């Protein structure tokens, strides 16, 4: 996949990681004591708290890794030489050169085909002469 499509994919995956992170954390967060008036929230089963402590770490690590990957891809972009006009000028130059080389090629091709025809003519003449000179025994 070309570099710009990879960059676009990377942006989309950063977005996906971000909202997965927030969504998961928000859905699975244990209740927290808001005000001293209300009693402590009831303790939760251990399954939640054991995995839960690492989830923010894992998910944020994935997010940061994706961002670093994006930076690496940006560094891998080819250097943009000049602007639009420079590119258009280069295209015009290349087109002119291409036309010149094409015409040269066409000339050489025609000359080569002419020579080929000549050689074929001469060869058929020589073959005819051979046939005529060779006496059947």
């Amino acid at each position, binding site marked *: 996949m*070309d570099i*710009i499509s990879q*960059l*676009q994919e990377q*942006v989309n995956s*950063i*977005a996906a990681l*971000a909202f997965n992170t*927030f969504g998961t954390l*928000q859905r699975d967060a244990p209740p927290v004591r808001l005000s001293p008036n209300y009693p402590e929230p009831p303790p939760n089963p251990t399954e939640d708290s054991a995995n839960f402590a690492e989830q923010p770490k894992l998910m944020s690590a994935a*997010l*940061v890794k994706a*961002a670093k990957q*994006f*930076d690496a891809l*940006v*560094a891998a*972009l*080819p250097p*943009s030489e000049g*602007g*639009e006009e420079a*590119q*258009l000028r*280069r*295209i015009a130059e*290349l*087109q002119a*050169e*291409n036309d010149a*080389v*094409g015409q*040269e*090629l066409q000339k*050489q*091709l025609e*000359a*080569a085909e002419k*020579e080929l025809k000549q*050689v074929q003519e001469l060869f058929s003449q020589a073959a005819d002469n051979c046939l005529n000179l060779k006496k059947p025994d």
Partner: protein
Amino acid sequence: MATATYPPPPPYYRLYKDYLQNPKSAPEPPPPIEGTYVCFGGNYTTDDVLPSLEDQGVRQLYPKGPNIDFKKELRSLNRELQLHILELADVLVERPSQYARRVEEISLLFKNLHHLLNSLRPHQARATLIHILELQIQRRKEALEDIKRRREEAQRLLKESLATLDGQ
């Protein structure tokens, strides 16, 4: 339940009855459309250009100008994005009711990122064209050299065979 058959082909085929005998007796193909046209009730334009962010009502975060340093802008937008994500996490912890503004800013950053990447595409297209032209020129030059060499070789062989025949 009523089912409809496929629509019949357009009736223009009758005009091309004698096309094989006389290609001029049938009408010319329609000329290419210019400007805007309507297709199945939708308006399309023939001039495909990336609409600028202001046209879509989105604030542009990276500087405008003739030549943008894409790498620098992409990197700074990435950093801003990370900072905003962190801010959102903070806001959710401390003042959960104010998430909307942060979420809006994050989506603004994403729109800017995608717009910047899309504006790289014309540049990529021109660079591809340049590359193709260079390859074509190189191939043509190689073919030219090849033909020259073969012609010289053929001339040499003819001279040699002439010399051999004369010496005989």
